[in-house]
């Protein structure tokens, strides 16, 4: 098992012999409805200084371009169209060469890689320009102790560019955990794995566990909740379903739940990472509970004879959306985290839990509240197909984003813009991971070394 240690990235502001500032509205990606109008961005290869820097400069610019191109907010200008070449980060660019028809870049990123021959540390410097405004928007430098971590620098730069130009937080310097499945192996087998958000640096996280289910990233820390089927220590022919809390940075983990008379599963962190909501089945009946990680206390939230599962918190932690078949078939419901009745958005009546999905004949599940709070992602089964969709917390605006043979298990990017999910393309095909913009545009495969299920998108790295 290879472990890429998370490193600290030093940040410094980059002072420029500034181009003359022209008073004008700041350059920003336009939004129509919820769709970005893609901004044309040009990213020439970065300049290089020091041993091995040229290769890193090329690779880093490639990853930066790929990150931005994977978002619906940007359209990358083809390098072949560039007029000005060999840009020097110390000098302003020739803006006319970038605004001319045929290039028509709205934003330009100029960068340089420096490998220090003594310490071998790696520094990236970059400047973001508003081409038509002929001004610098942003400049920064990042350093890491070794060139091995160059990909993270590319993601940091991509997050800065994204965040400067869209006004939203970025999501490129983050990781996705998932269950790795080897085709042909016994179906229960699955190993916890993690990779960069773009599919790079995939590795297994645990050596001893081979039947992992439902990993769920902490929204704040490099911690993961997951379930695992393990042999019952008392009766080795029997199996227990345990819930583990795993700290990726230390490798330490603890068993959160193991009761001889119940089964716990579907655990998910609260937004502050301090408690978890989960399902517990007792005598066949599944209800939702909340567990306080620091105090070790738990509260029961549902007391219904139906299946209540897949709880997910609102970003303020006050509400929980979940899946229940208390009505006819599985639907999405919402309740207060403190157990008090709430006024239902549709019926205006006060209920212990309010139904928010109503499509007849459709079976809803996997609800996951966006970290922005505006949407709840879900999977829905209708006409024999499983799709990923989003719905507003008041039950309005239902929109289906994807339609494969079986799409399920959505998870939001840390900025609530993109959803990663599991897709089985056709009967008998192996499950793979895909991402889609919340508008339903831009469905993309995220390559994994083997088959993969249950992706969970972690927070931005620190």
């Amino acid at each position, binding site marked *: 098992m290879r472990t890429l240690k998370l490193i600290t990235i030093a940040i410094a502001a980059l002072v420029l012999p500034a181009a003359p500032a022209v008073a004008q509205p700041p350059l920003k990606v336009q939004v129509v409805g919820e769709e970005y109008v893609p901004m044309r961005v040009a990213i020439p290869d970065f300049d290089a200084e020091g041993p091995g820097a040229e290769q890193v400069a090329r690779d880093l610019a490639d990853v930066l371009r790929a990150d931005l191109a994977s978002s619906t907010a940007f359209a990358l200008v083809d390098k072949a169209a560039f007029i000005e070449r060999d840009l020097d980060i110390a000098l302003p660019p020739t803006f006319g060469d970038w605004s001319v028809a045929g290039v028509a870049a709205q934003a330009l990123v100029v960068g340089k890689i420096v490998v220090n021959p003594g310490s071998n540390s790696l520094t990236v410097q970059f400047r973001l320009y508003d081409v038509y405004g002929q001004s610098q928007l942003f400049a920064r430098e990042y350093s890491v102790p070794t060139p091995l971590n160059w990909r993270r620098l590319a993601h940091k730069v991509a997050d800065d560019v994204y965040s400067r130009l869209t006004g939203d937080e970025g999501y490129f310097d983050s990781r996705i955990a998932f269950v790795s499945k080897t085709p042909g192996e016994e179906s*229960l087998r699955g190993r916890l794995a993690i990779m960069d958000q773009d599919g790079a640096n995939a590795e297994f996280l645990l050596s001893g566990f081979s039947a992992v289910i439902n990993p769920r990233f902490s929204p704040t820390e490099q911690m993961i909740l997951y379930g695992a089927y393990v042999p019952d220590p008392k009766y080795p*022919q*029997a199996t227990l379903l345990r819930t583990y809390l795993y700290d990726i940075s230390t490798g330490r983990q603890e068993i959160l739940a193991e009761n001889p008379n119940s089964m716990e599963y579907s655990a998910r962190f609260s937004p502050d990472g301090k408690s978890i909501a989960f399902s517990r089945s007792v005598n*066949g009946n599944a209800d939702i509970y909340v567990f306080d990680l620091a105090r070790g206390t738990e509260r029961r939230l549902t007391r219904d004879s139906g299946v209540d599962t897949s709880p997910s918190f609102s970003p303020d932690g006050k509400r929980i959306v979940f899946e229940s078949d208390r009505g006819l078939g599985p639907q999405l419901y919402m309740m207060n985290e403190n157990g008090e009745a709430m006024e239902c958005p549709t019926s205006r009546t006060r209920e212990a839990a309010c139904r928010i999905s109503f499509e007849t004949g459709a079976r809803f599940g996997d609800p996951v509240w966006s970290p922005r709070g505006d949407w709840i992602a879900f999977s829905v089964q209708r006409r024999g197909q499983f799709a990923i969709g989003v719905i507003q917390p008041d039950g309005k605006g239902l929109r289906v984003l994807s339609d494969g043979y079986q799409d399920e*298990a959505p998870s939001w990017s840390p900025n609530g813009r993109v959803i990663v999910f599991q897709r089985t393309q056709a009967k008998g095909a192996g499950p793979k991971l895909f991402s889609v913009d919340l508008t339903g545009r831009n469905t993309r495969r995220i390559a994994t070394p083997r088959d993969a299920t249950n992706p969970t998108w972690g927070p931005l790295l620190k």
Partner: protein
Amino acid sequence: MMRSISLSALTAAVVLSVSACASNPPPEPEPAPPAVEKAVVTPPRVSPPPSPPVAPTPSGPAAGSRADFSAKATDRVYFDYDQYNLDDADRRALAAQVAWLKQYPTTRVEVQGHADERGTKDYNIALGGRRADAVAAYLKSQGIADTRIQTISFGKDKPLDTGHDEAAWARNRNAFTNVIVEAIS
């Protein structure tokens, strides 16, 4: 530990065994159970090629073993789509499990609930839990001690049939009774 290989006990269990009900798909033998250590008196036949291991002959599975349970009782009952209720046929099948468990009171079982691939992972874990509990509750109602039964749900993650059609799904909606403590040492 008890090592009971009594012929009379064997016969009684055979009489009580009930075959799978017609509406249900045929039960599949579980993947080869762990070897029963030397409890079986090996017959001195060598020449013919080995026959399938499950055929219940008098020299077959050791009485009180997991294989014996599977041979004499229907070890799996099946459910309709999104259902977990037991019908009369299921209860007849489970009566054989009850009889076997009463005959070997030192045994212990794990009832495993399974679901087909349609439905979310979490919902199917819950549904498999309902199915396992339906069987466990029935066994308890027939006098099998609470302390001898545990349940687990594998949801849709451990299908009996890896196919993706109605027939496969029907086979995958089941509860399997797994003997975890045999009545042999």
